[in-house]
């Protein structure tokens, strides 16, 4: 078999998962070791994938059902690194809740494996398998703190709604298979007849399923509850990693087989994008819980990423990828702050708990200030550039309405970010939080803040990397 070495990362992760499971069963108190080994596995996989990125020529494997190209390698590296950081900074949190167990890193690894398969998929069945693998791991992760009612509720809600959306997705797949006779993206693109409207039905069903996974409005209902109920470290994982994978599938699915049908799906994406941007911004205003707030904020950020995809151009895809990359950095910073809000082994997650943070924790609050202004998209921070690239690609396609609505919703969104800043800086202080934080937590906060703050000095680097993504 040719080119088998290209899926070494996936093979390596699968073998590691099995090995770690066995290790967990036979060795007592092995959670710490497994945690560390998992970190190592993620890092090694990222390195192997990074080596792949050097051979840019797109290659397909297994009867063209898996594709390895620049996009897939880039997204995999982002996924792996994000998962790595999540695992790195969550240990203290898990210990506090006494859920520092062997299953946690293994579940994360298996969901990452699922995502890597999704990212590489060039076939509806492979894509569905990857999706289910990651989803099943995520259901369990959501309920990981099983002694808490909210966590169980989150997992159950996520499971029921996600299963529903998977059903819709499968139905779409079967429609497409029925009318093209193949599940392979490349074959589909040559087989279908543009006048066949049933294909459009199939696309719509699949888009609905995918929109659910990235929590785009109107398929976002689960997100706030699940994000709030899940353990914070899992919420962090939810807000970033599955979205990268789902977004890659979005790109691959829309641009490889169905680029000719852009008139059909562009409207859908524009609607999803506008609805997400506006709804996310407006609904976040009334929130009191930081995790719920960040759920709505992530809905609106996904709206911007979708705006880039809606353009139907390479620049649009690139701007979406840049947006997601910067969003992940901002999100990591935000959650690092959230994980630092601990006093006597209790984690606080209401917005009011941030009251007067600037007096007791000046450094923490200035980092959070920078991250929040960046999330709001105020220059010269990284978040502004992310939005700038998106709107540049949108306006290049003369989609002015989308651009103006998007920019106006940034103003609405600015309000709730400002509200957090107001509470941190203008309100009276409360008791201070513990200061004995994990070194990695501090490091991830510092690094993400510096990246956000200093992005304007080296804006070309990220563009250079991303501009090699070439789908059309």
């Amino acid at each position, binding site marked *: 078999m040719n080119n088998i070495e290209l899926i070494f990362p996936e093979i390596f992760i699968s073998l590691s998962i099995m090995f770690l499971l066995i290790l967990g069963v036979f060795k007592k108190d092995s959670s710490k070791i497994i945690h560390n080994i998992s970190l190592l596995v993620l890092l090694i996989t990222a390195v192997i994938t990074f080596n792949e990125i050097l051979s840019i020529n797109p290659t397909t494997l297994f009867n063209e059902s898996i594709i390895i190209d620049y996009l897939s390698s880039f997204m995999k590296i982002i996924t792996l690194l994000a998962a790595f950081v999540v695992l790195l900074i969550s240990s203290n949190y898990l210990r506090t809740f006494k859920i520092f167990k062997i299953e946690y890193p293994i579940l994360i690894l298996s969901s990452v494996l699922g995502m890597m398969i999704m990212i590489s998929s060039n076939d509806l069945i492979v894509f569905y398998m990857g999706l289910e693998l990651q989803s099943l791991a995520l259901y369990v992760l959501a309920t990981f703190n099983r002694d808490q009612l909210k966590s169980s509720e989150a997992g159950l809600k996520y499971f029921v709604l996600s299963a529903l959306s998977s059903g819709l997705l499968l139905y779409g797949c079967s429609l497409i298979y029925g009318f093209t006779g193949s599940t392979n993206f490349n074959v589909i693109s040559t087989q279908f007849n543009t006048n066949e409207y049933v294909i459009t039905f199939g696309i719509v069903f699949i888009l609905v399923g995918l929109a659910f996974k990235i929590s785009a409005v109107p398929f976002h209902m689960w997100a706030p509850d699940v994000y709030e109920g899940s353990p914070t470290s899992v919420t962090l994982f939810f807000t970033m990693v599955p979205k990268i994978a789902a977004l890659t599938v979005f790109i691959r699915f829309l641009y490889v087989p169905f680029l000719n049908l852009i008139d059909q799906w562009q409207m859908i994406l524009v609607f999803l994008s506008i609805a997400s941007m506006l709804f996310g911004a407006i609904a976040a205003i009334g929130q009191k819980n930081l995790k719920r707030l960040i759920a709505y904020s992530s809905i609106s950020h996904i709206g911007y990423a979708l705006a880039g995809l809606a353009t139907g151009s390479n620049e649009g895809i690139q701007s979406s990828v840049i947006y997601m990359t910067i969003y992940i950095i901002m999100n990591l910073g935000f959650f690092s702050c959230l994980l630092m809000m601990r006093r006597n082994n209790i984690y606080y997650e209401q917005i009011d708990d941030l009251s007067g943070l600037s007096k007791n924790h000046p450094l923490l609050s200035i980092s959070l200030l920078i991250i929040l202004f960046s999330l709001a998209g*105020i220059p010269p921070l990284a978040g502004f550039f992310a939005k*700038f690239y998106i709107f540049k690609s949108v306006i290049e396609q003369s989609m002015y309405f989308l651009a103006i609505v998007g920019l106006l919703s940034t103003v609405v969104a600015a309000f709730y970010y400002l509200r957090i*800043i107001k509470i941190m800086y203008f309100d009276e202080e409360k008791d201070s939080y513990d200061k004995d934080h994990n070194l990695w937590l501090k490091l991830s906060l510092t690094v993400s803040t510096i990246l956000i703050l200093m992005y304007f000095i080296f804006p*070309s680097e990220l*563009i250079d990397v991303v501009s090699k993504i070439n789908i059309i």
Partner: protein
Amino acid sequence: MNFPILSSLILLPSIGALFLFFTKSKGENKITAKYVALFTSLVNFFLSIYLWFLFDQTTSTFQFVEDRIWIKGLINYKVGVDGISILFIILTTFITPLCIISVNNSVTKRLNEFLIAILVMETFMIGVFCSLDLVVFYLFFEAGLIPMFLIIGIWGGARRVYSAFKFFLFTLLGSVLMLVAIISIYWITGTTDVVQLYELGIDTKYQNLLWLAFFSSFAVKTPMWPVHTWLPDAHVEAPTAGSVLLAAILLKMAGYGFIRFSLGLFPSASEVFTPLIYTLSVIAIIFTSLIALMQEDMKKLIAYSSVAHMGFVTLGIFTIQQQGIEGSIIQMISHGLVSAALFLCVGVVYDRMHSRLIATYGGIVNVIPKYAILFMVFTLAALGLPGTSGFVGEFLILMAAFKDNFLVAVLASLGVIIGAAYMLWLYKRVIFGKLINSELKKMIDLNKSEAFTLTCLAIPTLYFGFYPEPLINTIEVSIRDLIDTYNFSVASKQ
């Protein structure tokens, strides 16, 4: 490559701020922090004076240009000055140290962070006036919101939260449309470099919409009637130094933007929309002057008078004549000095009596005579008495307006009269009259630093009132060139 003087001007305050960030401010160190900030801003001031000294007044091309690749194939970091922008840079570097000196009494908590905010603000403000690329301009223009939001919100008065939010959201809402316009310009012409855009010109069919998008941003920032409502709130709640920065420099960004971008990039649209600007300016002048007449809060009164004065500025700019634009720039510089001084004057009595209400005061001329004299100088400058810088600007603007549109000029002149009324009435009620409130007798006259800052502001106000030549010489050639280009493109359209 020569010494990058403009980038140094932009970066220096931020470096000072970074330095402050790593020093502690407790007890003794408070004074050190202030000296560090003062030193940084003074170095910047002398650097900008040196820049003025080197500046060649005989040409309208941009000088000290630095052009570097910033985002490859997309945006260049390009800065440079011409006669129009250099005065604003000097105004900025001149006002900032005075602000820092004045923080003595008004800011009691978190001094270090306050100084950092002011220095960062200075970076952004100088950046706005230097930038020759639309995206770079937008970056600095918007970034200024962050420190100002914090200055109002953390160190402001009782309703600070409301005012800070109103300030932030109003200006952000105005500017996002400008961002759409900037990206559209990039899409239409393939560049955001202002110098290149001046040469290329923008197709007239796009100009009107683009002009409106820029207008939405500048109108909020100027502020023009009816979107001026954030200004009184922001001024009233901001600490003295914040008000000074806001009135003296932030408002000038929009006036500068009108000249540099609205006139320069969209000449035919500017011609189309001149009646709109005239109308809004005249309404601003008369309406807000009348409102100012009724104010009981000193800061609010001065804030409304700012709106009226900026009404003159926009009126002058869109007469599109040599005197009009010259007058507008001088009016902006003069307003920068005078309104800064007036806010400092209010700050002086506020620090002593903790009241901004006019009714609290009265008859303090004998208690604090030095203050009374300086306050008078600025009151008279604000109403445009001949011999003060306020007169030169208003006179030139009205002269140009009379040439262009008699009715508008008459109405605007009416505003001058109301302006005189509210300023003199303010002065009368605060300084003269019977001393009823016995608390006032305990007031202490200006201390050294207050006297110093106010005198520093009084000298240029009077000097440029009698002898505006240095200002006019600096801006003359650039404006003539701007008007020539404007006339040429309007004529070529017809």
